[in-house]
């Protein structure tokens, strides 16, 4: 059996409310908050970046797994905000986890789905007996241009998953990807902020890819939405995952445990993986979970997971929702300082 052996999450402590961002740009905060389904978002501290978030999430996962870190044979870090354009984040994580030097490693980028792509790589490497344990991380300190719609949701956070064969808490029954060349959102080399196709890209990008991947995996396994206890969809805002769940035939109850975006924003590569972690926090033996990520550009990775009885003795505290509740709110002035948006003198 190959699957998730452990998981860990990290959400930076600072938060900013949607109303506070709207106040600066002369928008109606309440309307935007309701329209996006995002009340607030997380912000990294000045000394936090994708590498520190990845390390903290991965350390929690290793601690909970109670495995020897030298048995980790692969590390993949998915992000669109790696601290370096050239120099891997994965090696920083490997050193911080003390995995030794004989391990496979690479950084991945596929907008918001690079973390689940890492899980697929680790899954195949474990399944083919190339590695004992693999760590797949989705972490981001995502950027939204000041005044752009993305500024209300682009946030920071990450999740790490250890994939292996021993002590599996959730078996990966199958994974399917749906991929196409869709330029809905991008960031060119050297540019600080991403650009996007605007409000009409939802249907050909997010909805098409998620429904296609979800329907394919359910068809191949002969499953229907009512067979699942929970479903987690990528969360670019609070509205899209709710709408896609409805389109596919999933109920609000199935997605609500993992719907974290209204309180922390879109953590990009961390988004669906933090949602999955919040769901695993309450999952019980034999429960079935559907996970479908989405990354602009575009693609969706779907996973069907069955929770095993190993989860009953697995340490799940502090849970994702406990971490979400610990936020400290800052104003827009502090936010632009923390995100280094202020142009400093020489």
């Amino acid at each position, binding site marked *: 059996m190959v699957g998730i052996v452990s998981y860990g999450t990290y959400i930076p402590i600072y938060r900013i409310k949607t109303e506070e961002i709207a106040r600066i740009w002369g928008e109606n905060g309440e309307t935007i908050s309701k329209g996006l389904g995002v009340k607030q978002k997380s912000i990294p501290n000045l000394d936090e970046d994708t590498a520190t978030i990845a390390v*903290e999430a991965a350390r929690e996962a290793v601690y909970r797994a109670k495995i020897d870190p030298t048995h980790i044979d692969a590390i993949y870090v998915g992000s669109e905000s790696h601290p370096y354009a050239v120099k891997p984040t994965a090696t*920083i994580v490997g050193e911080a986890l003390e995995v030794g030097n004989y391990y496979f490693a690479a950084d991945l980028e596929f907008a918001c789905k690079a973390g689940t792509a890492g899980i697929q790589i680790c899954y195949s490497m474990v399944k083919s007996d190339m590695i004992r344990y693999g760590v797949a991380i989705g972490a981001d300190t995502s950027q939204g241009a000041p005044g752009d719609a993305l500024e209300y949701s682009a946030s920071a956070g990450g999740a790490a998953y250890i994939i292996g064969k021993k002590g599996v808490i959730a078996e990966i029954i199958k994974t399917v990807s749906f991929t196409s060349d869709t330029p809905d959102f991008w960031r060119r080399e050297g540019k600080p902020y991403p650009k996007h196709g605007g409000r009409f890209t939802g249907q050909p990008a997010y909805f098409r890819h998620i429904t296609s991947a979800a329907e394919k995996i359910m068809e191949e396994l002969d499953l229907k939405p009512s067979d699942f206890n929970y479903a987690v969809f990528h969360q670019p805002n609070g509205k899209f995952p709710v709408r896609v769940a409805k389109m596919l035939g999933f109920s609000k109850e199935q997605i609500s445990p993992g719907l974290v975006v209204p309180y922390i924003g879109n953590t990009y590569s961390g988004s669906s993986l933090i949602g999955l972690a919040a769901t695993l926090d309450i999952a019980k033996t034999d429960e079935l979970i559907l996970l479908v990520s989405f990354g602009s550009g575009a693609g969706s990775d779907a996973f069907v997971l069955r929770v095993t009885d190993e989860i009953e003795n697995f340490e799940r505290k502090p849970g994702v929702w406990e971490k979400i509740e610990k936020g400290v709110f800052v104003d827009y002035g502090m936010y632009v300082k923390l995100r280094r948006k202020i142009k400093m003198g020489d």
Partner: protein
Amino acid sequence: MLPRFWRKIKYRYNLIGTKCENCNTYYYPPRNLCPKCRRKSKIVEVKFSGKGEVLSYSVIHEAPENMKDQKPYIVALIKLEEGPIITAQLVCDSSEVKKGMKVKAVFRKCGEEGSAGVIYYCTKFVPENL
């Protein structure tokens, strides 16, 4: 010779110090020789738990250039549960810090050589309940 930060990565990413097995004293940063036991030293490498408490602290208001954006920030003397006392940055609001406060180690950025240079990572501390 390699830059110091490169050489010390192992000890800065994790709290890896040493212990003298002759007198059971722990050291951080690591020592090659136990100053108490001298030639009888039996030095082995150990990893500290990262848990400790604040012995004393300073709130820095006049910061060096590369730390100005973080002021006021706290530099604390932290007594690790294994015994050694280390100086480190404590990341929390300066109104929250007090002596005896329980803290834990975290992985943070501690500097960079400008916007195009190498980024340094190290161990800092935060309140234990975070």
